């Protein structure tokens, strides 16, 4: 067995995996130390015994282990940290460069995605305005009867006739304007429907959601998984997980496709509600809104939740 062997064993005993200054000295220092300390052992065992039997082949790999881990006389962690620092710099440069010049770059600061909002008029329009249309035709129809009773002279008839012509002209103009307006509205509706089908379902705020809830309006759907629904959901909401929509088709208000449907999930970046809302729109429901605040904002405000 070589003298180096003893040095290594000594080193292994004194500091097996330590990286302190005392331990990371070179092999030669340890060797000298062993020589100083145990001259008898070194002389007797190391020279006589090992001259006959060379155990180096067996023991070298074992007693060199601690030394191997400390690449000669440097600390492996120190070297690792230095190398890591060198590697991290290009990583940061590449990340920045990629994001600047790539087509799939993302914004540096991410913000909450905002869908199109819905106005209160549009949301609550159904109950506040009670059909203000069709007020014009009856008055036009009534006016000739009222005025036609008192007619003696031709002048009066002529005047009446002129009035009637003017009225009919007005009515015709009005009708024309109305029809144009209606056509425009219909066009806008078609466009809106197209937009909706492309996935831009309108979103409501927590205040709007609470107003709907208080007025007992809307058909509420919780789009989260069943266990989260069971832990707490908005009262009157039913649970439909987007992937299980087929199972729940009978629960939907299919008799009236114009029913206002409010879909929500956890809030934040949860996309289950949008996913479900888009499926519902594709099924033909026309008034689907997403409550983006979701369960998180609802419970934050202390609004009622029920557990199942």
């Amino acid at each position, binding site marked *: 067995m*070589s*003298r*180096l062997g003893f040095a290594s064993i000594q080193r292994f005993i004194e500091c097996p995996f330590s990286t302190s200054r005392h331990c990371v000295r*070179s*092999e*030669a220092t340890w*060797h*000298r130390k062993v020589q100083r300390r145990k001259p008898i052992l070194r002389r007797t065992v190391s*020279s006589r015994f090992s001259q006959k039997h*060379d155990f*180096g082949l067996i023991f070298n*790999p074992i007693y*060199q282990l601690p*030394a*191997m*881990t*400390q*690449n*000669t*006389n440097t600390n*492996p*962690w120190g*070297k*690792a*940290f*230095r*190398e*890591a*620092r*060198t*590697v*991290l710099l*290009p*990583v*940061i440069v*590449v*990340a*920045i460069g*990629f*994001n600047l010049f790539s087509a*799939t770059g*993302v*914004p*540096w*600061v*991410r*913000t*909450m995605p905002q869908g199109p909002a819905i106005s209160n008029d549009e949301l609550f329009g159904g109950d506040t305005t009670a059909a203000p249309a069709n007020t014009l035709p009856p008055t036009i129809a009534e006016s000739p009867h009222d005025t036609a009773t008192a007619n003696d002279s031709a002048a009066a008839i002529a005047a009446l006739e002129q009035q009637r012509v003017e009225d009919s002209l007005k009515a015709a103009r009005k009708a024309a304007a109305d029809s144009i307006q209606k056509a425009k509205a219909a066009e806008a509706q078609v466009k809106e429907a197209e937009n909706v089908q492309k996935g831009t379902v309108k979103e409501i705020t927590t205040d709007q959601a609470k107003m709907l809830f208080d007025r007992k309006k809307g058909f509420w759907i919780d789009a989260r*998984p069943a266990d989260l629904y069971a832990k707490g959901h908005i009262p009157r909401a039913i649970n439909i997980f987007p992937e299980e929509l087929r199972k729940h088709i009978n629960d939907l208000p299919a008799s009236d496709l114009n029913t206002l449907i409010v879909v929500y999930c956890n809030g*934040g*970046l949860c996309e289950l509600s949008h996913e479900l809302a888009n499926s519902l729109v594709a099924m033909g429901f026309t008034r689907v809104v997403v409550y983006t605040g979701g369960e998180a904002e609802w419970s934050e405000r202390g609004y009622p939740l029920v557990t199942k």
Partner: protein
Amino acid sequence: MSNLISANSPLLPEESAPANTPLLQTLSLAARLLVGFVMLVAGAGKLGAIEQFGHNIYNYQLLPLSLVNIAALLFIWAEITIGILLIVGAAVRGSALISGVLLLLFIAAVLWAMSQGLEIDCGCFGNANGEGGVKVGWPKVLENLGLLAASMFLIYFPRSYFSLDQVIHQHWES
């Protein structure tokens, strides 16, 4: 033999110590390739869907929304770079250290998600095709612990066959 390894031999300070045994070199090579390929596949898989990966990070509820994109970019590019470096065998110790730190972060995040009862996709290998990825759970923790062990091994025994480090080292020696 005593001549060969005398105190003033040039072999002593430099060459006696590093891991040169074939077994250790083979193990080191295996660890290098394992960690390298896993990192490269994980990073490249997420490169096409950075937005989605940011979303996955946000789901852990550990980072504010404004920071998740930057974190996603750094994670992805760190994984890709480490993967390539480990496979070719360059700066093995540094790469192994970074991968170890990343894996520690991943393990901590998965454990945190599990402790909070979050049933979220781990986002480990990206799910660009829109299908559900792997959920967080004990298998993920064990997988990451295995990779962490391999990384630690590489920090102590960076020498292996077919590595760029060795080529450069030999070039300098000659």
